[in-house]
């Protein structure tokens, strides 16, 4: 080994030891990741915008008759939706009135922050995506991420203007779950080597006695236990059930097609609602 190589080796080890000492706390390591993510965020945002524009251009190449037909359809849909909206408004008013009359608490609603996926993790063994919202938008770590079909995952590292979302298909994302029309509870998590195109989830710790009730096709919802994920979010559908030595396990197909995700919503809290009016005292 030449003298230069020995010097280089010593410098390298000193640098590595210094790095390990400086980042010995996990919080410090996460801060390093936050800074790196904030630094590369414009680059990912730019490439994401470019690909979205290219896709839009490819989709937008339509002939005049096609555009006229699309316009006609959109007008029709608009009329239908306006009518439906009016009907729903009436129903909401009626519903609120009935709830107030019965003294029920207003059903909690989520406060959502819309976000766009700007990059997918390049790691082979961890499944996460990067979104274009961060601390500046009120995001914090461990916040549920949803779409209208169901749960997507939860936030992990949150930088100033971007955040990582750990997908439900990752083994590290564990959700307390309950099976539709049964009282069966379990913990849902991804597979260690889950694949993006045909991912499968595992619902573990089910009672062996419940196996006859657990039919394929039954929906799995979040149970709200644990405090991270609110209850009632659709997680997936049972595919099969197998007995194990101490418990039963169900294979679940996720409700959300994670390979085609573009836009998601981060649940940042519950929507503030005005307190329900106190029912008037009854008079005889």
């Amino acid at each position, binding site marked *: 080994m030449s003298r230069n190589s020995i010097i280089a*080796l010593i*410098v390298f080890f000193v640098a590595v030891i210094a790095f390990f000492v400086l980042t010995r706390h*996990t919080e410090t390591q996460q801060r390093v990741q936050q800074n790196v993510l904030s630094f590369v965020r414009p680059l990912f945002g730019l490439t994401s915008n470019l690909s979205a524009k290219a896709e839009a251009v490819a989709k937008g190449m339509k002939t005049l008759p096609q555009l006229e037909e699309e316009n006609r359809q959109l007008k029709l849909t608009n009329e239908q939706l306006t009518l439906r909206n009016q009907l729903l408004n009436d129903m909401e008013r009626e519903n609120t009135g009935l709830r107030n009359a019965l003294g029920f608490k207003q059903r909690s609603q989520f406060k959502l922050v819309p976000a766009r996926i700007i990059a997918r993790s390049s790691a082979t063994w961890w499944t996460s995506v990067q979104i274009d919202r961060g601390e500046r938008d009120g995001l914090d770590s461990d916040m549920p991420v949803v779409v209208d079909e169901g749960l997507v995952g939860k936030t992990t590292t949150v930088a100033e203007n971007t955040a990582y979302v750990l997908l439900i298909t990752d083994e590290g994302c564990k959700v307390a779950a309950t099976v539709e029309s049964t009282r069966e509870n379990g913990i849902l998590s991804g597979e260690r080597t889950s694949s993006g195109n045909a991912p499968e989830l595992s619902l573990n710790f089910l009672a062996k006695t419940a196996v006859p009730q657990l039919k394929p096709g039954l929906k799995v919802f979040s149970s709200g236990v644990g405090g991270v994920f609110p209850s009632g979010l659709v997680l997936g559908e049972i595919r099969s059930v197998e007995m194990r030595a101490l418990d039963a396990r169900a294979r679940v197909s996720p409700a959300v097609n994670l390979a085609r995700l573009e836009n998601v919503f981060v649940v940042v809290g519950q929507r503030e609602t005005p307190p329900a009016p106190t029912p008037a005292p009854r008079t005889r």
Partner: protein
Amino acid sequence: MNTLAFFGIVLVAQCVAILAQHLVPTIGPLFDARPLLYPVLLAYGALALPFGGMLALAFCSGLLWDALTAQFLVQRAAGGGPPQLVVENSLGWSILLYALLGALIHGLRPLFLRGRWDIHCLASGFCTVAILLTEYLLMTFRRGGLVFPSTLWPRIFLPGFFAMLAAPPVYFLFNYLANLLDYRVRNEAPS
């Protein structure tokens, strides 16, 4: 000066490759295998750069890769204790792995000096497989239960194969750049 300029080019290319890796999708029909370009550049750097340059490249690559891919999770104790932040495969371990792989590949330099492009090709495949396998072993050890499903092996070896396919163009491109800069790979062994 030429060495420094060439090192700069390899380093920038490596950083771009790591960042661009986020935009490379997995190949669904091939067991979700993901083509990885940065191990190809790491292998080239280990063969073409001096030992010190290889170590610097391993340091920067490992740091950037870990910073972009480390997974931080908040763990809550069952008894309701305070939440704890944990990290899977902590930041910095890739630096050591890349330096170790780089040092092994650097030992093949005498063959590389004879213009053997196939050495870089084999080193790229080896480097990719070793990185993926080590990442998986560390992860599965940490999570508990050494699980080796059948879908694991294609996801480790196919990227290695892709790396071997990508290696010759990378070799010839960087050799061309080295010629432009008048950079010559020299044997560092003491005479």
